[in-house]
């Protein structure tokens, strides 16, 4: 549905370069995972795409429109962002949380149509019983699903997810991944997900983007990216890659020096 073109993107705080010369095309309705060691600039990359951070150099085009020329509200109508977690000072009910996703589409009033859409999303995801619960009271898995529901309510062509599975047990990890995959397949959504679990990335993504030190090391389908050489180069870890039903699975064996964070 939407194609994202990123051309020569650079971003940094003061003298520290976080992202350097990133150029990549993301095809429509594909599931792209971004992997890489901590501090590789993965989250920053997502935030640049979403205009939360403004890049120093380079352009990002969504359907050939430069997001620099788009208003923030317009970006929000095209790209949804699912944060890793949402820390709130004040309590918010689940319904209100999901309703926030409608904000880019409405004026001052949340009219019945918007509320109907929120109910619809909640019901689709089986969250309607939680509608009046307090967001903070819920389990990590439920919270993550609600944040995804919010992105869904935003009705955008692109969803960015920042480590949505990091705090979850494997059941919920699979649950979240299945949800996203379903969106990509049935709703033509383009999903960009930062994820640490290489096996999850491998199992669900169409393409994997491997980053280190603000640069793209490798990009392509899981089989071509998840190789022993790439993993050793990026993570400094000796690993065994085992292919099952055409999907590569990574089994880390041992560290190689202390290069992982360098």
């Amino acid at each position, binding site marked *: 549905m939407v194609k994202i073109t990123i051309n020569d993107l650079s971003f940094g705080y003061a003298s520290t370069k976080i992202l350097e010369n990133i150029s990549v095309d993301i095809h429509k309705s594909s599931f792209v995972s971004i992997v890489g060691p901590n501090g590789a600039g993965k989250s920053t990359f997502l*935030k640049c795409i*979403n*205009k*939360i951070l403004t890049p120093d150099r380079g352009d990002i085009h969504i359907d050939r429109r430069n997001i620099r020329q788009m*208003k*923030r*509200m*317009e*970006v*929000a*109508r095209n*790209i*949804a*962002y699912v*944060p890793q977690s*949402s*820390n*709130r*000072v*004040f*309590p*918010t*009910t689940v*319904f*209100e*949380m999901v309703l*926030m*996703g409608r*904000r*880019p589409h*409405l004026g*001052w009033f*949340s009219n019945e149509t918007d509320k109907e859409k929120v*109910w619809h999303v*909640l*019901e*689709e*995801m*089986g*969250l*309607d*019983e*939680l*509608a*009046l619960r*307090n967001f*903070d*009271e819920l*389990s990590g*898995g*439920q919270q993550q*699903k609600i944040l995804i529901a919010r992105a869904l309510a*935003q009705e955008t062509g692109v969803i960015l997810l920042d480590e949505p599975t990091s705090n979850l047990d494997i*059941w*919920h990890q699979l*649950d979240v991944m*299945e*949800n996203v995959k*379903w969106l990509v397949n*049935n709703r033509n959504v383009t999903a960009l997900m930062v994820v640490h679990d290489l096996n999850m990335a491998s199992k669900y993504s169409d393409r994997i983007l491997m980053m280190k030190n603000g640069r793209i090391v490798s990009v392509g389908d899981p089989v071509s990216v998840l190789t022993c050489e790439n993993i050793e180069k990026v993570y400094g870890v000796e690993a065994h890659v085992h292919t099952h039903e055409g999907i590569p699975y990574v089994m880390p064996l041992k560290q190689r020096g202390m290069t992982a964070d360098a």
Partner: protein
Amino acid sequence: MLGLFKKQSRKSDTDSSGSSHRKQTSDARSDYQRYVGRKMLFMFVMLALVIFLGAFIVTVGPLEVSVIDVYKILFSRFFPDYFINADLPSQVVWNIRLPRIVAGIMAGFGLGICGCVMQSVLKNPLASPFTLGISSGASFGVAVAAVMGVGIISGPYLLVGNAFLFSMLCAMFIIALSSLKGATSETLILAGIAINYLFSSLSDLFHYFATDEQLRLMVSWGMGDLSAFSWSNFMLLLCIFVFCTPLLYLKANDLNIMVIGDENAKSLGIDANRVRMFCMLLASLLIATIVCFTGTIAFIGLVAPHMARMVIGSDHKYLAPASGLLGALVLIVADVVGMNIVRPTIVPTGIMTSLLGVPFFMYLILKRKRKEFW
């Protein structure tokens, strides 16, 4: 169409929360309708209480005027041809009691709504309308006026004018400062605290040089008092009030989103810094206007939003007006108690507000369910 995941998700709910499932969809919706209905009811009750109490308080005072006479006097202002009344009760009701009540309602409402807005945009439950150093600025303005007699306008409005000028100066300075540095809520709060210290020490300096009478003037101003409000300064307050509150209220949706953090807000299309600046500016303007007429009644701005949040939740479309109504309610009740509890001595409104408000607030804190709020 999402049958597969519906089933799975249902299962996940059962697994993780252990609650009985298979509630009908319509149940959740009707629960929500009832929830909204409760909020509306609460708002309505609050509004009715404020009106009722205002109408009751106007009949209370040392001058014995019957309830009917009081309303005859009030209506005679609107329909002078139909009601005729004596001078003295008319003077008392119209020029003494009513301005006090109107001032109480407007000041309480303004403080409540501004407190709510500031807590949300600063994402800090300890923020109050005076976080930006407004009260210390105002106190300093009063100190300058009292000790040196210097101000932008002279005459009876010297104090008021100075209080307003300096509180706005303080707020503007902080807002300007933090807009240079990106206006995160932390910058605003820190700058506010710093400015608070600066201006309180400046006021202390003036206290040191003040004569006995000037000192009294500053101290009694600092306690907060509604009696200085009169019809002649009503229009100014009303204009600012009518200008600020609707604009703040129009930001209700954005305020809801502000509390989930700047980055999240940005991803939903809200420019967090701009919204914060806008709200802080309007709130400062309104607070400075209220403060220069009534002195510092700090407690309401801090606590009314919390009280409202405990009862009504944190949807600002309900929360903001509810904070305002609660603020107005607490202030007029405190004022009438302060005026009448140890007659003929009057207890200053600011003191009475805290004396009455704190126990009520404590009760709410202890009563609330664990983890329900904050």
